């Protein structure tokens, strides 16, 4: 029974890709999808897909007429809209000059596939399934020397029960360009498999905020592959709060000297949610910096996972790599796992890491109580403080309030639940 349902998904992908020539990137990707990752694979041990593999799901056939999305434009940004995994020009804003969005041709798509296949995301289910089933790979380019002033916002919506959606993006920041990108995942689908390849050319700078806020039944298996060239800068912040199971996996390759990476994340989990931030940072050349702060707040029967690998190659001298993760459990039935993994082959490096999982600090709670502050308010103050200073460090000033409110919305339900 289980076997046939697993095959149901594979067969439906096969059926779809069979209409293409066997050299087409979709066929190649499809042939590489043999099954869902097994819990025997180390990076999937703590985030098991058993219940997903037992669901009868089919890739969606995007409805290009769906038009019931009146997304609020909260931050005065330029909007790019994806519905059912397909780019919708009719629902998107006009792009600022120097920013270009196009559909990759089949031959370009094949190159895209080859680039991802060279990374450690080659076997990720979202790589193979999304490349098989995506309506098209969308390429977003910022031209050389262009500093985009307005925030650019990508909103992913749509999908339906028993369907999977496959938005695939290629983001290239040409030399010396810069962009502030906000992505919001608001799917109403059983499975979302966003796939991204990001290339930052020399001196390019990307600020990225991702907010995962899919429907309460959604599985989101986001996969991101990032290449950083000389003196480029990526400041990335993810807020994971939605879905029944959300895993954001990012592999970042520091390939050019003096590249700088911040890879921060917060997850806020309640009920039976499972949230997973899995990252791998590869220092392959000297003089690069990576900093990572991850924080989790968990209530109900939720589970959280942070897996953070940092690999420093033999030649990557003077690497500065910092990683800190902390999770706070607000209920006895919630649990969190932190798995830092340092592989250091160079000798002249500064690498620090720390990981803690615990409850709110009793001394701090008592101090607030002793000043007349109610227990539930005291907890709220401490949790917000725990997240707020990190949000302030991670995102642009003008977005503090917006991001903090997004976090607060998720927190409010946990805090009231856990203190009743």
């Amino acid at each position, binding site marked *: 029974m289980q076997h046939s349902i697993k095959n149901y998904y594979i067969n439906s992908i096969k059926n779809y890709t069979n209409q293409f020539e066997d050299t087409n990137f979709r066929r190649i990707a499809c042939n590489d999808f043999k099954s869902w990752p097994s819990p025997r694979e180390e990076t999937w041990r703590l985030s098991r897909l058993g219940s997903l593999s037992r669901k009868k799901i089919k890739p969606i056939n995007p409805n290009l007429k769906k038009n019931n999305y009146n997304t609020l434009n909260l931050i005065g940004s330029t909007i790019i809209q994806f519905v059912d995994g397909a780019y919708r020009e009719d629902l998107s804003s006009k792009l600022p000059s120097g920013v270009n969005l196009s559909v990759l041709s089949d031959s370009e798509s094949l190159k895209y596939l080859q680039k991802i296949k060279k990374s450690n995301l080659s076997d990720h289910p979202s790589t193979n399934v999304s490349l098989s089933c995506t309506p098209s790979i969308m390429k977003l380019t910022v031209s050389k020397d262009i500093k985009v002033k307005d925030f650019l916002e990508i909103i992913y919506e749509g999908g339906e029960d028993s369907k999977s959606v496959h938005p695939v993006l290629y983001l290239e920041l040409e030399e010396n360009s810069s962009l502030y990108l906000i992505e919001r995942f608001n799917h109403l689908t059983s499975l979302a498999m966003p796939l991204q390849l990001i290339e930052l050319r020399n001196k390019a700078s990307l600020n990225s905020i991702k907010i995962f806020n899919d429907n309460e039944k959604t599985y989101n298996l986001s996969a991101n592959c990032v290449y950083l060239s000389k003196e480029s800068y990526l400041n990335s912040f993810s807020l994971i709060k939605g879905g029944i199971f959300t895993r954001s996996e990012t592999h970042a390759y520091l390939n050019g000297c003096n590249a700088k990476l911040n890879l921060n994340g917060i997850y806020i989990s309640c009920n039976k949610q499972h949230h997973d931030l899995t990252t791998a940072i590869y220092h392959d050349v000297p003089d690069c910096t990576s900093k990572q702060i991850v924080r989790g707040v968990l209530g109900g029967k939720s589970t959280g996972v942070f897996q953070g690998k940092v690999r420093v190659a033999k030649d990557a001298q003077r690497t500065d790599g910092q990683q800190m993760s902390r999770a706070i459990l607000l209920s006895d039935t919630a649990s969190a796992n932190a798995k830092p993994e340092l592989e250091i082959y160079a000798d002249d490096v500064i690498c620090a890491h720390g990981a803690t999982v615990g409850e709110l600090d009793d001394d*701090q709670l*008592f101090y607030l109580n002793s000043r*007349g502050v109610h227990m539930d308010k005291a907890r709220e103050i401490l949790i*917000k*403080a725990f997240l707020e200073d990190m949000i302030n460090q991670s995102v642009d000033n003008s977005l503090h309030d917006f991001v903090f409110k997004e976090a607060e919305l998720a927190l409010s339900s946990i805090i009231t639940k856990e203190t009743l």
Partner: protein
Amino acid sequence: MSLLEIKNAHLKLDDKNILNGVSLSVNKGEVHAIMGPNGSGKSTLSYMLAGRDGYELEKGEILLDGISLSEMEADERARSGLFLAFQYPVELPGVGGMSFLREAVNSRRKFLGEEELDHLAFVKEARKEASKMYVKDEMLKRAVNVGFSGGEKKRFEILQMAMLKPTVSILDETDSGLDVDALKIVSDGVNAQRNSENAIVVITHYQRLLDYIVPDFVHILSDGVIIKSAGPELALEVEKNGYSGLINAA
């Protein structure tokens, strides 16, 4: 009726007897000093009064203005007018000083049936009190106690006391770690709050503080019991001869 009444308080921590029958009556307008060797139970007594989890009485009773505190949580006791200045004030990373004070003051005001202060009125009030304690505005913008020096932490405690206007304040070694000038500032701050309606209990190791905050009574706590109570002259005796004679005589 006493403002604070401790009757035969017994308390164990991890099966160890720490308080072994402490009794103390504090009346309106009085200042009491508690002295005693390290480990004699002074901080334990203050945590017990403030209602810290795990510091529940095994036997005995405590009354604040005639009302039993035993069933009240720490926050309720504080709102009712009990204040503890911590021996080791706790750092609250990410919690701004000003919003912390405001939360505390408004909780107390609500309890007293007073209107909550709006933001501007509050900031004005806080700045006024802060300047009296030589607490700079900049410190109120920082996270509570984070990166404060030992003396700054103690001054911030007394600033909180000034703003909360408690009926009974327990100051646990508020003088420790203060330089001569800061000791004067803190003592002036405390003295300014003395009135005929409230009471203060100072826990200290040093007679020096009692030159500034002159107590009506001095008590010696040893092994979890008060072994001697007298006037301010008792502190001078301790300063001169130490505790051993007093303990042996008890």
